[in-house]
């Protein structure tokens, strides 16, 4: 089961990365703006990774040791998760087409994707640490995401009206 998780995840990750890049190359999407967005989101994800390292260190000092492998798993999820999320947010902000009427639907889908990703990340942390209280931490970012989605929706409705 552990081998399946580690090597299956690695295999799916590499396949997703390869096919994603191949499709993007067909649409001229592997351009300098994508490189800029990728570098910026990676840079942002490092701030969150550093914060997570400090949280894990604090837990160790307070006597709530999680273990090496689960800690590395959490760090990997936080780093890759925040990298992906900030990339999606940056992309939606920078490529916002003022003439596109389907913008509202795309924003709604992006909001749902972000919400689900947050839930998956915290559910994984809860599963790894065998502590359901990590799910409670997910409430605040999910609520914030819903508030932002509602605000955007209202702004779009005002523009349309």
């Amino acid at each position, binding site marked *: 089961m552990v081998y399946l998780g580690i090597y299956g995840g690695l295999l799916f990750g590499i396949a997703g990365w390869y096919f994603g890049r191949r499709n993007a190359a067909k649409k*001229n*999407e592997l*351009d300098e*703006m*994508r490189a*800029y967005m990728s570098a910026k989101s990676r840079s942002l994800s490092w701030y969150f990774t550093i914060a997570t390292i400090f949280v894990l260190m604090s837990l160790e000092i307070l006597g709530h040791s999680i273990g090496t492998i689960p800690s590395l798993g959490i760090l990997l999820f936080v780093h890759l998760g925040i990298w992906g999320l900030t990339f999606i947010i940056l992309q939606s902000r*920078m*490529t*916002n087409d003022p003439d596109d009427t389907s913008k509202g639907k795309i924003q709604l889908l992006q909001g749902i994707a972000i919400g689900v990703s947050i839930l998956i990340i915290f559910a994984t942390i809860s599963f790894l640490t065998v502590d359901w209280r990590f799910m409670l931490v997910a409430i605040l970012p999910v609520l914030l995401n819903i508030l932002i989605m509602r605000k955007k929706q209202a702004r779009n409705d005002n523009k349309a009206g």
Partner: protein
Amino acid sequence: MTQEQLGEIVGVSRQSVIAIETMKYNPSLELAYKIAKAFNMQIEEVFVFEDKEEK
């Protein structure tokens, strides 16, 4: 010329063209040169330097 066509000529996505048009992304000198060349114009005729940060 459509955004899609311009993107194909200069080798970037339509989204990048939108970001440049809406001033959310500052293109590199090389890309700015390619865009100007696609319109048969000089860089300074297509792009105006404004002393402000990216949005």
